């Protein structure tokens, strides 16, 4: 499951969100460490914790 899919599973309302130009940015440096949240400035939704993301991945 990708980081994007984990975030959508936590916040389904972000399924139509514009991750390209919005207040949330996901980044992957192609260094083998995978994608991460490089910016989360959403006005109402809190940035998911590591625990939430791990749980979303297990689900």
């Amino acid at each position: 499951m990708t980081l994007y899919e984990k975030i959508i599973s936590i916040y389904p309302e972000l399924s139509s969100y514009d991750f390209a130009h919005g207040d949330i940015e996901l980044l992957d440096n192609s260094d083998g460490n995978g994608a991460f949240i490089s910016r989360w400035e959403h006005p109402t939704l809190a940035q998911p914790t590591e625990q939430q993301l791990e749980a979303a991945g297990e689900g």
Partner: protein
Amino acid sequence: MPYLGNKPVNNFVSFAKQNITGNGGTSYSLDHPVTGANDIELFINNVRQEPTEAYSASGATLTLTGAISSTDDVYVIFRGRALQTVGHPSDQALEATSAVIGGNSVLTTASNIAQNTGNVWHIYSSGNTTLVDATYTKIALNSTRYNIGGGSLDTSNYRFTPSVAGYYSVSASIDLTPDGSQTGNFIVNIRKNGTTMAYVDAYRGQTGRHSACITTVIYMNGSSDYVELFCYRESSLAQDAFASASATYLTGYLVRV
């Protein structure tokens, strides 16, 4: 009094006179270099001497066919001089049908002509870069087609650092792999020190290869500033960035310091 014709390029030139004191010899130095004996009039005791017969002259050397002594009254009138320096009038445009300015020099400013020694580079990825859904993925630029001028490509962090400060024209292109029939948006994104400097939104509307390119100008400090290339791929797409030196690349060159 006005004169007809074009304005003289510099100044009117007066004839010059040089007194020569004989030393019993035949060779003497001239104050002004000449091309030959006919460029001067030589008088010995007020008797004019015949050029090439009584004397010869070359450069700054006068050679007589007979010796003169200190009691002789000897002088030279310069009718022509071998060398004169005429400056280009500052109030007139410099025009020519062609010009050769040494080496590979280029005109950088109106007052300074020097070779552009800035960096030139064209870097690309030797393999496909796996793109991630709804994520800005750094293109793994690890190969060099050109790298001139001392800039450095970090093949671990996939970033290029120019070694000369100045304004660079930076261009990038990303070509998606041709597999699949998905449609959706992707973005070509140039970043300096992690900050977006330019991007372009593109759309993959059908099967096949699709690419997009972008050009911008970025100031680089020549020491710590670096540029990277990212690609954002919408989750509806499944394509990666295709490995191609001619289709997925980051290139740049110094425009001015």
